[in-house]
C-alpha cells in the first residue's frame, strides 16, 4: 500500500548553520491518525513546513500518496490540507470568504466553493459568523476557521499543527470529536500537540522528534506498554499522620487526606485497595498523577530516546 506520507532522510539546515532536521525518515499509512510529538524547537513545524512546501528542504525526499514533492509537487499539494500553528488567514476578510477563496486556489468553482464553505462552517459551528470579519472571531473560532479552510478542498491528508493550543476544554473536546469523525471517514490525519492526553486519546501511531532526530516511531499502544510504573493519586476519607505500609507498594502521604501510590503496570489495583481496606482506609476517589504518555515523553526527551524504568 502506498503510504499517505513517506519521508526519507529529510534534512533542513537554516542560514547560519542551525540544523533543524538531521535525516528524519518515517511513513504514515492511509487512514492513520498519527501524532508527531516533540518539545519546542524539536523540528516538528519545520517538518510540516517542508511537507506543505512552505520551507525549502536541504536534503532528503517527501512523497504524499506517491507524489514526490520534487517531481510532482502540484499533485502532492492537492492531497494536503494544513492547519498551521499560528493564525494565517486575512484578518480583514469575512469568514466565508476566507474559506471560499481557499477553495478557489484549488480550482473549485465559486458556486461549489460557497456550498462547501457553508458545509464546513456549519459543521464547525461558524456559519452564524460567516459575515463577520475574521479578526473579530474568538481564539477558538479562529482555530475552527482554519480547520474549515483546510478541509474545503477535501484533502486526503490533513496536517494539524497544535490545533487546540489555547482552546478551552469544551471546544477542544468538540474538535476531537470532529477530527475523529473526519478520520473515520477516511482522511489521514497528522497531529502535533503539546497536550499529550490529546495524542493518547486520538492517535493510533506516534513519532517523537527531538533536536531534529526521530527518537521514537511506534503505535500508541506499544509505546504505552513500555511504561513500567504508574503513579495514582488517592483521596481518602479520614486524615492520616503516617502513610500506610503495604508490602511491595510505595505509598506516600501528600497531605493528611491524599496518598500517592506507585504501582507496577503488571500488578492488580486490587492489591492496593484490599491493603488499604484492611487498614480501615476508605478511598473516595482516584486519578492518574500524570498522563501516561506525558510520563513517557518526558522520559524519552530527557534521556535521548532511552526510556528509563521501561519494562
Amino acid at each position, binding site marked *: 500500500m502506498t503510504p499517505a506520507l513517506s519521508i526519507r532522510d529529510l534534512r533542513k539546515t537554516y542560514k547560519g548553520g542551525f540544523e533543524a532536521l538531521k535525516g528524519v525518515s518515517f511513513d504514515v499509512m492511509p487512514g492513520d491518525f498519527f501524532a508527531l510529538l516533540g518539545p519546542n524547537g524539536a523540528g516538528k513545524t519545520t517538518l510540516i513546513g517542508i511537507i506543505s512546501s*512552505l520551507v525549502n528542504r536541504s536534503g532528503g525526499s517527501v512523497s504524499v500518496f506517491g507524489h514526490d514533492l520534487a517531481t510532482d509537487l502540484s499533485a502532492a499539494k*492537492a492531497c494536503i490540507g494544513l492547519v498551521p500553528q499560528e493564525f494565517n488567514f486575512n484578518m480583514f476578510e469575512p469568514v466565508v470568504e476566507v474559506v471560499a477563496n481557499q477553495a478557489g486556489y484549488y*480550482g*473549485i468553482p465559486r458556486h461549489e*466553493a460557497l456550498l462547501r464553505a457553508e458545509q464546513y462552517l456549519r459543521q464547525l459551528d461558524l456559519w452564524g459568523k460567516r459575515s463577520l470579519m475574521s479578526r473579530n472571531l474568538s481564539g477558538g473560532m479562529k482555530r475552527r476557521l482554519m480547520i474549515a479552510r483546510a478541509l474545503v478542498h477535501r484533502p486526503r491528508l490533513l496536517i494539524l499543527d497544535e490545533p487546540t493550543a489555547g482552546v478551552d476544554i469544551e471546544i477542544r473536546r468538540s474538535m476531537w470529536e470532529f477530527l475523529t469523525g473526519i478520520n473515520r471517514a477516511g482522511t489521514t490525519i497528522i497531529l502535533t500537540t503539546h497536550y499529550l492526553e490529546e495524542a493518547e486519546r486520538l492517535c493510533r501511531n506516534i513519532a517523537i522528534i527531538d533536536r531534529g532526530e526521530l527518537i521514537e516511531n511506534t503505535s500508541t499502544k506499544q509505546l504505552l506498554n513500555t511504561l513500567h510504573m504508574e503513579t495514582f493519586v488517592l483521596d481518602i476519607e479520614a486524615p492520616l499522620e503516617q502513610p500506610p505500609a503495604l508490602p511491595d507498594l510505595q505509598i506516600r502521604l501528600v497531605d493528611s487526606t491524599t496518598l500517592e501510590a506507585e504501582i507496577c503496570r503488571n500488578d492488580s489495583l486490587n492489591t492496593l485497595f484490599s491493603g488499604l481496606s484492611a487498614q480501615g482506609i476508605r478511598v473516595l476517589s482516584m486519578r492518574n498523577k500524570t498522563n501516561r504518555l506525558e510520563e513517557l515523553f518526558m522520559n524519552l526527551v530527557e534521556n535521548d530516546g532511552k526510556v528509563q524504568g521501561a519494562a
Partner: protein
Amino acid sequence: MKTRAKMIALQAIALKETRRFLRIWVQTVLPPVITTALYFIIFGNLIGPRIGTMEGFDYMEFIIPGLIMMSVITNSYANVVSSFYGSKFQRHIEEMLISPIPNYIILLGFITGGVARGLTVGIAVTAVSLLFNPLNIHSLPVMLSMIVLTAILFSLAGLINGVFANSFDDISIIPTFVLTPLTYLGGIFYSISLLPDFWHSVSLVNPILYMVNAFRYGFLGITDISLGTSYAISIGFIVALYLFSLYLLRTGKGIRT
C-alpha cells in the same frame, strides 16, 4: 493542475485582490482622486492660464493625460506592494503557497488586482478632469493600451518591492524616493523639448517619460518620443520584471525559508 482549475484559481486571487481595495475605497480610491483634483485646480486652473500653451495646447489640456497616468502608476504600484507585503506580514500568502497554484498564476492574480485599482482610479480621475476640460481623444487604442501596459508594469514593480520588503517602512521607501521623483520628472507638467540638452538626455533614462508621452499622444496626438520606442521600452520592462518576479516566487525569496 488543469487549465480550467488554473483559471478558477486566477479568478479567485483577482476577485480577492479587487474586493480588497474596493472594500477600503475611502483609503484607496478617494484620496488620489482628491489629490489629482487639487492638481487640476492649482496647476490647471490657477497657474495654467499664466503659463499659456504647451506644445500648442492649453496647459490644463496638456497636464491632464500626465496626471491620469501618475494616478495609475502610483495606485497600481501601491495596490500590489501593500497587498503582497500585507499577505506576507499576516502570513496569509501561505494560503496560496500550499495550494497547487503555479507561481505565474499567483503573479497574474496580483497583477490583475493592481491593474484593476490603477484603472479604477484612472477612470475616476478622468471623470474629475471632465469638470475642468472636455475629453480629447486622438487615438483610443494607444491611450488604452498604454494605460494597461503601465498599470501592469507598475504592478510588477510593486510586487518586487513587496517581496523584498521586511517592514512597512520598506514599502514606502521606493514610492517616496524613486517613484514620485521619476513621475514628476517624467514630463507630466512639461515637454522635455523645453529642457537644456543635458537634462533632456538625462530625462530619456526615465522610463516613465516614455509612458506619459505615449499616453498623451492618445489624447492630444503629440509626443516628444516615438511611439515605437515607448511601446518597446514598456513591453521590455514588463518582460524583464515579469521574469524577475517569477524567479523570486520560484525561489521563495521573502516568503519561504
